Each structure stands twice: as structure tokens, then as C-alpha cells.
């Protein structure tokens, strides 16, 4: 195969010219993945905290299942969401298949277990550490939960980033439920798959570089916020 780098300049050119299509794809990718990460955090973090701080029958099973679901295959998630949202499926009347909403749903389902399982681990570890002091200081339940969430916030941000990275890198599920519709549900990863199938390897590779750069930038921003907050919050 010829070196795909020969044409790299054309992709850079696209970027420099602020290509409108590329801009829209990047924007949609970010919007979908950030929404999915927020949604997954809203469900996954309280769920993780709940499992970490309560003792009930079958708790070990729940933990094993949560941990196992971290490895959910994106294609399977895509297929399940597809069958659910299809006009012939149970939620067909909503008309959500082949929309960005469906993609948000698929990505959120994919990463909720990751956020829940890792949050559970982080919160439980801190809880083990804090528990005797809380008992000696007579700290109430609500205050315990608030303190644990607050004091593990930096680890929780890292968990969010892990979820964001997994969702942003995912192609199988969004391809199936989004349909890779030009200008509507086409995101970075499905564009890369499409350009690869068109044999446009240099452009595909360049889009890949841009995707990696975006993930790097998001992580760098989160890192800076963390550094700043750690300095100021002690």
C-alpha cells in the first residue's frame, strides 16, 4: 500500500480553511459524546455511590455485573438500541432511530456501567478509609455521602474522562443507530469508517488524527481544571 501520508497536507488544508462540513462533524461528535457522558454520569455516579455505601443481599452479584458490563461490546449496545428504537420496536413511535438522540442513548448505555463501576470502587475505597473517623466524629448519613463525593471529585473527573474517551472513540453503535447520515448523524468515527471504505485512506487517517487531538484537548482541559482546583481547594 502506498504511504497514506502523501496526501496528509490536504486534510490539514481542510482544517486550516475551516471546512464547514468538517466543523459540523466535529461539533456533532462533541455534542453527542458530551451529552452521553453527562447523562451517564447522572445515572452512573449515584448508582456507584449507592452500591458503595449500602449493604444488601446480592450486592456482590451487582458489583460483578457492573464490572462485567464495562466491557459491553458497542455493536451489541447499538443493536439493542436499534431494535428498541426501530419503528417495529417497542419505542418505535418516538421516531428516534437515525437521530443524534439515538446516538446519545447508545453511547450513554455503553459508558454508564464504566462510570458506575469505577465510581463505586473509588467511593468505596475512600469510604473504607474515612469510615472510622466518621463514626468517631458522629457524622450523619447525608453528610457522609456529600463528603465522600466531594473528596473523590478529582478521581470522579478522571472517571468521566475515561467514559468520554470510550464514547468518543466508539463507532459500532453510533453507526447502527445513527445511520451515518451526511450532515445529520455523521460523526468523526463514522466519517473515518466511511472514508476508509471509499479508499480515501489519507483523509481517513487525518480525520483520525483530528479525533485524537480533540480527545487530547478535552483531557488537557480537564487536567488544567484539576490542577487549578487542587491548588485552590487543598
Amino acid at each position, binding site marked *: 500500500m502506498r504511504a497514506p501520508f502523501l496526501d496528509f497536507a490536504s486534510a490539514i488544508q481542510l482544517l486550516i480553511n475551516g471546512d464547514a462540513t468538517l466543523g459540523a462533524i466535529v461539533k456533532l461528535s462533541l455534542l453527542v459524546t458530551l451529552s452521553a457522558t453527562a447523562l451517564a454520569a447522572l445515572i452512573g455516579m449515584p448508582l456507584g455511590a449507592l452500591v458503595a455505601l449500602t449493604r444488601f443481599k446480592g450486592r456482590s452479584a451487582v458489583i460483578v455485573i457492573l464490572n462485567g458490563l464495562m466491557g459491553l461490546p458497542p455493536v451489541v449496545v447499538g443493536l439493542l438500541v436499534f431494535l428498541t428504537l426501530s419503528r417495529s420496536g417497542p419505542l418505535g413511535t418516538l421516531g428516534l432511530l437515525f437521530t443524534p438522540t439515538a446516538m446519545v442513548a447508545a453511547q450513554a448505555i455503553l459508558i454508564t456501567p464504566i462510570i458506575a463501576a469505577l465510581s463505586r470502587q473509588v467511593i468505596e475505597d*475512600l469510604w473504607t478509609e*474515612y469510615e*472510622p*473517623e466518621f*463514626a*468517631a466524629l458522629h457524622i450523619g448519613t447525608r453528610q457522609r455521602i456529600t463528603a465522600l463525593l466531594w473528596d473523590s471529585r478529582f478521581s470522579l473527573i478522571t472517571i468521566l474522562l475515561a467514559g468520554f474517551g470510550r464514547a468518543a472513540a466508539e463507532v459500532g453503535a453510533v453507526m447502527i443507530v445513527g445511520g451515518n447520515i451526511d450532515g445529520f448523524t455523521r460523526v468523526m468515527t463514522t466519517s473515518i469508517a466511511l472514508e476508509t471504505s471509499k479508499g480515501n485512506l489519507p483523509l481517513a487517517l487525518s480525520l483520525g488524527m483530528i479525533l485524537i487531538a480533540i480527545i487530547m484537548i478535552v483531557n488537557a482541559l480537564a487536567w488544567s481544571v484539576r490542577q487549578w482546583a487542587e491548588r485552590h*481547594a487543598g
Partner: protein
Amino acid sequence: MRDDTTVTPMIRLTRVSYDIGITKILTDVSLDLAPGKPTLLLGPNGSGKTTLLKLLMGLLTPTSGAISNTRDLRKAFVFQKPVMLKRSVAANIAFALSATKRDASQATISSLLRRVGLEHLHDRPARKLSGGEQQRLAIARALALNPMLLLLDEPTASLDPTATKAIEDIITSAANDGVKIIMATHDLGEARRLAGDIIFLARGRLGEHTPSPNFFTRPSTPDAQHFLAGDLII
């Protein structure tokens, strides 16, 4: 020995035993603790000092026997290895204050930090403090509960003489302020310096409870004599 003091006891143990499974940790301990100078808890490792402190605090419940308090006895506890919240020095104090009805103003925080000589470290992350400083912060956190009884589990273990002196000074001044101190130590010199009376434990049983000078000059049990002579008690 109850007739050593004419003051009513703050806390009375009646034939208290504590077992874990078939292992007897404490057996048949009866004693009265009265307000006044610090009570020092001596005995070899494994003699039950930490367990006795936790029973007094209410962190453990006796397997048999009874512990009775005077009404509304405010108690506080400092672990041998206290856990700092992942926050600033001041925020650690504020957290302890939030568990009480006391006002959590900067003035209260500063005055507590002044009592343990840490006011200059107000904004420092608590986990970045030295071992001795963390121990002092833990004492300040306990003092934030405004206790009448303060239980300390070997607060000077593994500290250098300077740090030890700082902590002993805090304890002396708290005792002078009317806080009853019960403190475990394995340092005979420290017991001599601080104690009003001595509780000596061996193999989970109460060996002696006697005013400090008596213990060092005329130990009444063979175990205590061996302990003072530096022999191993097996």
C-alpha cells in the same frame, strides 16, 4: 480502688468483656473513671488497650457487662493513625464542627488551630502535613466536638521527641482546661510525665488501676513488676 477518689465517676465499667469469636480480647474489666488529671493506659501490645478505648467511645459494644456514662457526656476519639480528609487543614476542622451545633466561623477554626499550634498551616492540604502535624490536627478535630472526655490511642507512637513534646503540651493544656483525658501509651516516661492515674492491662485483664506514683514505686501485681522491669509478659 474506687475509694481513691471522692468525685463521682464520669464513666463506669461493670464486668465488661469483649470477644471476637472465641478469642477473648478483654475479660471482666470493672473500673470507674473520674474527672481530673489524665488517665494513662499501659500494657504490652495486644493487652487490649485500643479495644478498651473503643468500648469507652462507644465504637464497640461489650460482649457482656455494662458501661454507664454520666448524662450527656460528650466524647471524642483520636486514632493511632488518624485519617485526614482530602481537604485543607481548616476544612478538616470545619468538617468536624459541622457535625456539632457549634458555630463553624473562621474565628472558631482559628482558635482551635491555635490550641494545637497549626494556625500557620491553615490553608495547607491536610495530607501534606508531617505525621506529628497530622496527629495535632486530629486532636484539634476532636477538640472541635468540645468534648468532656477525650480518648487518645498512642498519639505519640513513632514521633520524634520534638513532636512528642508538642503533643504532650497540647494534652496538658486540654487537661488544665477541664477535659478528661484517657490515653494509651507504651512509653513509660510519657506515662510518668502526664498521668494522674494509671490503668495497667495484661492479657485482656485489668492488672491495676492506681494513682501514678503508686504504680511506678509499688506495683502490686507480678505482671506490672515484670512490665516495669522491661520483661516480656507472655
